[in-house]
């Protein structure tokens, strides 16, 4: 290649991103990434969103990725820029969200010398990325970026990081096109075990008390997986429940829907999991928030597990029929073969099973005592749901009780509409995620259901929302408490409320006004509907300070170390403790 064909590393970065179809980058500049920002300045194809903290850039990229199915892209500088991205990378790893972080690094000849703003970025981010690279040669830069996108987006998606020293950005090198790279680094998917598939189908046909338990993997697998799941449920008339990450893959209005399962799942979902004799787990990973006590988890069921990641198989729960591969592919094969065999199910037993399930539904485990003087948080979420569900709507959340109430009381009809931090449980996720979502869907209603404490963790993003005129609605259930912590302290730590209240809160309405946006405070249940409508109708960002009951607990709840059939349904007073074994769990 002649000198004339060479371009600078910084140009290569931008060119590679355009080649990958990237139109949006979330980031924050600094010394070690200045050459790339310089290139960014001189082009028009990529829009850059300047966040106010690098953690927010990663969460915004997650929100963007999860609401579009595309890959989110982030620019950060070396040192503090890179270390600030660690929480978002870990969050994306836990929830299988594809993001690519490009970090500046000190020049190669200074690496290892404790240079200004040097950090061992690939060392620090090694355990929180699917893979990461330090690029020392400009000629390898394009290839590495294309690889990074491949790794992030294929198989089980996840975050990757490419660390680019400043001299590599300045130096000239050859550009490699996206379709010119060798793909030998991509893991081959094993072929589907047809005998195992047939065994699973045979068990499905005989099942007397079946349940389908689906997770985020169905959404990651894409629309065809979602369609197959819906067809399977319709064809078999099996009940279905989903994890926190899986909400929306089956419509909440569907007649076979049991609601979310797990620690704060519905009674009917958890009882069905416990009592079933056939469990079809699709793209979920038997996380401890789902299983409760492992040795009491669904003791009498034949378990089929569809997952793309072999390391998810038999990690927490030993299953009978593991089927490894892309969920959409396995599901369509499963359905085709089941149909070939006559679309059989054990109808008679299934009717009896639905009867039991319906009796569990009658428990109305999401019930709560409403009040006319104070806004109950559940009621606030219910009204929010009622008044916004007809909109083209996306919802993100922070982490805590409000998150669980949102999961319980909001209904999602489609996938990619619900963005929440599941695996890592990152307070501060929701606001920047809502920004990423709104960027991707400028004309949709984007709501972040927040707790006041979580929201404060990334409140600096008000600046971003205002700068880019993003009409994100911050619906804060303000209980002036770290509510979820308070709940555990009440139930497990002798009501010793160690540091679990939100002191010195700002006046949220004034805070909004300080940024020139709208603030609404609501403390009267009678005003709630009007105020929510006001929020929806306002054409810009809104902080909605919803003052709610301060001591409400989130039920139902499977306490740590308990089994699915040992749920707490509501406030109880009789003597019976959570066991010591359970208290040590998180």
């Amino acid at each position, binding site marked *: 290649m002649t000198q004339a064909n060479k371009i600078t590393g910084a140009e290569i970065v931008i060119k590679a991103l355009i080649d990958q179809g990237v139109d949006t980058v979330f980031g924050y500049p600094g010394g070690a990434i200045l050459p790339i920002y310089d290139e960014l300045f001189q082009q028009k194809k990529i829009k850059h969103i300047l966040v106010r903290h690098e953690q927010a850039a990663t969460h915004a990229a997650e929100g963007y990725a999860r609401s579009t199915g595309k890959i989110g892209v982030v620019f950060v500088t070396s040192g503090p820029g890179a270390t600030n991205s660690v929480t978002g990378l870990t969050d994306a790893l836990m929830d299988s969200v594809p993001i690519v972080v490009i970090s500046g690094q000190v020049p190669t000849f200074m690496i290892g010398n404790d240079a200004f703003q040097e950090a061992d970025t690939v060392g620090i981010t090694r355990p929180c990325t699917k893979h990461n690279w330090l690029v020392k040669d400009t000629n390898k830069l394009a290839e590495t970026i294309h690889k990074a996108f491949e790794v992030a987006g294929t198989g089980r998606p996840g975050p990757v990081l490419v660390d680019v020293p400043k001299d590599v950005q300045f130096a000239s090198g050859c550009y490699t096109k996206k379709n010119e790279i060798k793909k030998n680094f991509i893991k081959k998917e094993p072929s589907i075990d047809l005998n195992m598939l047939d065994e699973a189908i045979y068990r499905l046909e005989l099942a007397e008390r079946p349940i389908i338990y689906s997770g985020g993997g169905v959404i990651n697998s894409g629309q065809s997986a979602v369609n197959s799941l819906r067809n399977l449920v319709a064809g078999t008339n099996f009940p279905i429940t989903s994890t926190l990450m899986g909400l929306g893959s089956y419509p909440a209005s569907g007649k076979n829907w049991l609601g979310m399962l797990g620690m704060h799942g519905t009674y009917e979902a958890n009882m069905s999991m416990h009592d079933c004799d056939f469990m079809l787990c699709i793209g979920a990973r038997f996380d401890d928030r789902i299983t409760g006590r492992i040795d009491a988890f669904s003791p009498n069921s034949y378990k089929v597990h569809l997952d793309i990641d072999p390391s998810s198989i038999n990690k927490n729960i030993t299953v009978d029929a593991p089927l490894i591969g892309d969920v959409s592919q396995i599901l369509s094969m499963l359905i085709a073969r089941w149909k070939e065999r006559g679309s059989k199910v054990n109808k008679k037993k299934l009717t009896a099973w639905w009867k039991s399930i319906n009796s569990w539904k009658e428990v109305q485990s999401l019930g709560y005592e409403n009040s006319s003087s104070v806004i109950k948080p559940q009621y606030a979420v219910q009204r929010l749901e009622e008044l916004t569900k007809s909109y083209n709507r996306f919802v993100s959340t922070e982490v805590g009780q409000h998150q669980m109430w949102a999961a319980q009381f909001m209904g999602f009809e489609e996938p990619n509409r619900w963005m929440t931090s599941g695996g890592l449980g990152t307070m501060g996720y929701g606001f920047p995620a809502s920004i990423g979502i709104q960027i991707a869907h400028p004309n949709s209603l984007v709501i972040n259901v927040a707790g006041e404490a979580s929201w404060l963790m990334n409140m600096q993003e008000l600046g971003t929302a205002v700068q880019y005129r993003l009409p994100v609605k911050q619906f804060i259930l303000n209980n002036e408490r770290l509510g979820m912590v308070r709940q555990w302290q009440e139930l497990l730590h002798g009501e010793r409320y160690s540091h679990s209240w939100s002191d010195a809160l700002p006046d949220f309405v004034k805070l909004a006004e300080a940024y020139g946006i709208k603030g609404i405070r609501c403390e009267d249940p009678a005003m709630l509907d009007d105020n929510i409508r006001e929020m929806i109708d306002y054409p810009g960002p809104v902080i909605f300070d919803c003052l709610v009951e301060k001591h409400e607990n989130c039920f139902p709840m499977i*306490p740590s170390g308990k089994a699915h059939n040992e749920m*707490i349904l509501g406030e109880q007073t009789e003597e*019976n403790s959570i066991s010591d074994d359970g*208290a*040590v769990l998180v």
Partner: protein
Amino acid sequence: MSLKLKKGVNKQSAYNLRDPNLDYEAAHTLSIIVDNESGVLARVIGLFSGRGYNIDSLTVAEVDPDGHRSRITIVTTGTPKVINQIKAQLNRMVPVHEVIDLTLKGKAVQRELAIFKVVANGNQRVESLRLADVFRAKVVDSTLKSFTFELTGTSEKIDAFAELMAPLGLEEIARTGIVALLRGDNSS
């Protein structure tokens, strides 16, 4: 059916959690073919430390300079469930091309190389040389007061030799850790 719970009954956390891995633990020798690139060993070791797996022995060196491939040989202990997790987790890593469980695959040749420095005189010096001969250890360096032996063999053999040398003036040992390949004409 629901748990009856009194507020705040629990005064302290407890630490009597049942060990979930009470099942039988066994040692496995894993042969891992990886890209020979910077950081790859750190990735593999980081996986073991991060997820709490054991490393009993580890060796690594490039074995295919053209393909830039290295072979890492790790001896680890765990229940069958843990060993399966380790293999699956290793297989997820981008620079990992193959993970072979030599313990499951059949009989493997396992060898270690060790160097012993024995400082002694008189009868002890003679005795160390005699024993080295029995073990087919080579003398690779000597002074009037010392021998340096090189010994290759199974880990048990090296342990045994070290034990015998201990009272005879053994000063220092360096061991490579285990390298292993499948027996027979199959490549692993």
